[in-house]
């Protein structure tokens, strides 16, 4: 037995839910023509808590609980207590996948096998329901008969669709009644023992099914809930035929939904699914799209409003956007549009999936981006850090006390996890030549043990990243890049070196090395306690043991205070971190997160590429022409910068100050009531006791006073803090 809306229904072996319902005199939905072939949406219902299930394709297992959806409405969303089991996923490979095991599918499979190709044949009748063809092409198959359901992701070189043809549904008034069957459905139902009382057949009658053929063109169906008569026009007369069942043999159309889902993939359609089918006569009245309830009258209305292409009519009327994605209505819609426009209308695109999927089934086997963890992830957790995702990494945003983190940097010493920075080693006889071409500043005169800040430009002279160039040896350098830009930087370096054919080896060390920034007035003292008697001076770097751990120590500054980046093997990260915290306890050391770091660097006016820059930001626009040496013979972006230098350019990144509170980043910048720019960075500076900002202005003359967040802000120079840079060099 199964249960349908509380009524217990008997089942026999081989029944689908729809057949069991029809045998009991019920309709699996609320009415409408049934096809029993999985093409239309007339029989969808909730099955064991899963909505939108095609009951004609679902075996009637004992105990199944079926509930009809509300008539004319979508089913209610399930609550959070759903006990649905996550489906399992199998990845399989195949040279050729044939969907459909009918004659044309068998022919395709046989000829491919004879040619030595590995062939997999899928057929819904054997429990392999193809729900989507995704990029690859990957054929997503719902394989029944397993618990939980298995989703097979079949990675194919080519897909052949031999899915045959679908029967046409009638379009006329009265098609929501019960007792309506396509000819194929009537044959299936009759064979399964479903009684089809007092049946009439319009069009070609099904073989072996007792029914009275009715000649003429279908005009309407009559009845009260269940059909009681068909009305046809025949030889100029309107003739009414009483009946309790109506069977429609109106022809067929390609069963091409999978092909319409995957129009640009390696998918070939054969057999009836590829054949030309005669379109039905243009419908004149009634529901054309049973799924969305679109009527011919609706089509008339959208046509009158000017939507006169098939895809536009579809979008404006919703015809074809429902459960079956046009399997029932598309031939009628094409016929209607063709008649109105006077030209053939090509089939519209179908949206996945071809079969209803649960969210679990749709998501099975797919993953969100993998976010990386630094070797200090556990340390951050232990310190109560609030972690968030930045540049593809989990990073500590804050350790819970922004003020304390900030002041530790400005007045004592602090440590920050900068393991996420891009780190690269380049070596080889042509390495200087390569770097001279890659970077807009000089490299050849960089002495051993020294480092230099550098912009990364593309061929258009736009800033794509920035970082440091550290000279390790005559023919060996260490390069650093931003956390978010590291992957692209590696490709950028490799691509250009290969393009130029230069003899340079490249090794990306981003995920092999950790890095801790030790920053603050007591940073050098902390390093001394850990065995560094003579820390590098500003813009120097050296390989030194720190707390007994081999480190590449780089002296630079992003925070505005004396700073040392300790690059080290990641298996020593936790040990080094703990040593710094332990030895610096009486110095007031504490870790700082990104929230503090972003504010500290903003006080220095340092730009964050990607946050303060736009895709077409040139060094001139961000006020960093000092980082570009146009006296060099050539470098990436040089010709673009040279060409654009004399051209007017009204966009500039500006600095502003205003009374606290700092406005939100992204706030509009106004002048005389007009929007003239946008805030890119904003911070309430504790030491300056005002808000400091960076933002874009787009019109000359640049005003000296603007309005942000309804308040006055004044343009300023940078750095806001320690403009002489004495603290960083201390």
């Amino acid at each position: 037995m199964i249960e349908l809306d509380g009524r217990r229904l008997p089942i026999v072996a081989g029944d689908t839910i729809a057949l069991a319902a029809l045998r009991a005199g019920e309709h699996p939905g609320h009415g409408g023509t049934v096809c029993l072939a999985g093409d239309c949406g007339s029989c969808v219902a909730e099955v064991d808590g899963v909505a939108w299930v095609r009951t004609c394709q679902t075996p009637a297992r004992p105990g199944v609980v079926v509930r009809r959806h509300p008539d004319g409405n979508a089913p209610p969303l399930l609550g959070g207590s759903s006990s649905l089991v996550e489906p399992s996923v199998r990845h399989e490979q195949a040279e050729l996948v044939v969907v459909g095991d009918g004659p044309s599918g068998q022919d395709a499979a046989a000829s491919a096998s004879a040619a030595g190709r590995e062939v997999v044949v899928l057929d819904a009748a054997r429990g392999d329901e193809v729900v989507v063809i995704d990029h690859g092409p990957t054929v997503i198959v719902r394989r029944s008969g397993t618990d939980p359901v298995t989703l097979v992701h079949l990675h194919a070189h080519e897909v052949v669709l031999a899915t045959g043809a679908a029967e046409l549904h009638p379009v006329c008034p009265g098609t929501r009644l019960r007792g309506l069957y396509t000819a194929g459905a009537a044959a299936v139902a009759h064979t399964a023992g479903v009684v089809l009382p007092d049946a009439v057949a319009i069009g070609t009658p099904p073989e072996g099914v007792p029914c009275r053929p009715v000649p003429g063109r279908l005009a309407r169906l009559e009845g009260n809930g269940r059909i009681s008569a068909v009305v046809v026009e025949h030889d100029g007369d309107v003739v009414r035929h009483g009946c309790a069942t109506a069977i429609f043999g109106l022809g067929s159309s390609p069963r091409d939904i999978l092909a319409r889902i995957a129009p640009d993939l390696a998918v070939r359609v054969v057999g009836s699914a590829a054949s030309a089918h005669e379109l039905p006569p243009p419908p004149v009245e009634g529901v054309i799209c049973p799924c969305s309830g679109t009527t011919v009258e609706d089509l008339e209305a959208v046509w009158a409003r000017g939507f006169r292409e098939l895809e536009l009519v579809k979008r404006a009327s919703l015809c074809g956007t429902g459960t079956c994605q046009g399997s029932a209505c598309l031939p009628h819609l094409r016929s209607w549009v063709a008649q109105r426009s006077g030209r053939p209308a090509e089939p519209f695109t179908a949206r996945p999936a071809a079969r209803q999927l649960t969210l679990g089934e749709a998501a099975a086997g797919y993953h969100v981006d993998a976010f990386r963890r630094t070797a200090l992830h556990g340390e951050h957790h232990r310190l109560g850090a609030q972690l968030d995702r930045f540049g593809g990494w989990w990073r500590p945003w804050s350790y819970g006390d922004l003020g304390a983190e900030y002041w530790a940097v400005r007045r004592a010493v602090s440590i920050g996890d900068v393991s996420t920075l891009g780190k690269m080693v380049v070596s080889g006889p042509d390495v200087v030549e390569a770097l001279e071409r890659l970077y807009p500043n000089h490299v050849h005169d960089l002495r051993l043990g020294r480092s230099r800040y550098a912009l990364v430009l593309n061929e258009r002279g736009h800033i794509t990243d920035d970082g440091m160039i550290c000279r390790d040896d005559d023919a060996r350098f260490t390069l650093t890049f931003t956390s978010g830009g590291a992957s692209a930087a590696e490709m950028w370096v490799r691509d250009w070196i290969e393009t130029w054919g230069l003899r340079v080896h490249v090794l990306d060390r981003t995920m092999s090395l950790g890095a801790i920034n030790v920053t603050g007035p007591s940073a050098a003292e902390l390093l001394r306690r850990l065995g560094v008697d003579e820390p590098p001076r500003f813009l120097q770097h050296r390989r030194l043991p720190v707390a007994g751990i081999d480190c590449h120590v780089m002296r630079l500054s992003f925070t505005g205070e004396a700073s040392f980046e300790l690059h080290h093997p990641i298996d020593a990260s936790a040990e080094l971190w703990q040593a710094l915290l332990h030895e610096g306890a009486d110095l007031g050391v504490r870790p700082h997160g990104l929230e503090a770091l972003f504010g500290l660097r903003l006080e220095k006016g340092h730009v964050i590429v990607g946050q303060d820059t736009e895709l077409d930001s040139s060094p001139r626009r961000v006020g960093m022409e000092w980082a570009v040496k146009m006296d060099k013979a050539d470098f990436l972006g040089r010709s673009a910068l040279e060409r654009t230098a004399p051209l007017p350019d009204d966009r500039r990144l500006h600095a502003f100050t205003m009374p606290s509170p700092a406005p939100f980043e992204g706030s509009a910048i106004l002048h005389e009531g007009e929007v003239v720019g946008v805030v890119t960075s904003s911070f309430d500076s504790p030491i300056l006791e005002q808000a400091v900002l960076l933002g874009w202005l787009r019109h000359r003359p640049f005003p000296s006073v603007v309005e942000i967040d309804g308040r006055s802000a004044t343009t300023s120079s940078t750095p806001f803090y320690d403009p002489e840079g004495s603290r960083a060099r201390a």
Partner: protein
Amino acid sequence: MREPEPFAGWRVVAAPPALDALEARTGAGVALRIAADDLLVLSGGEQPALDDPDAIVEPETGFVGWELDPPAVRALLVGHVEWQPPAPRPTLAQGLVAAVPAKLWLREDGSALLLCLAAYAAELEARLA
């Protein structure tokens, strides 16, 4: 799934002929040729010497790995790998495993070493659990 095993080895970037010689000396399964100019040596010890004065040779502790027996390898390939690994064994296969960048050293007996960067280990472990 067990905790992954960390590796302390060497990373060598050098001219391909120099790496060919080093790979032959080190032995398959210990030296993994992850690119024509890039060799990952999974064992520690002396710094590898090779015939390329500009070679980059660095200690490498950035990878972790899981030893998988043949049934685990089959389950991994069927459940989490969208691509077809090369047929000959032993072989190094590289690509996404559960959408995480990874490497597989596939042995003749059906077992394998699954490697990934330590930064991805927790994510991969969770996806394979």
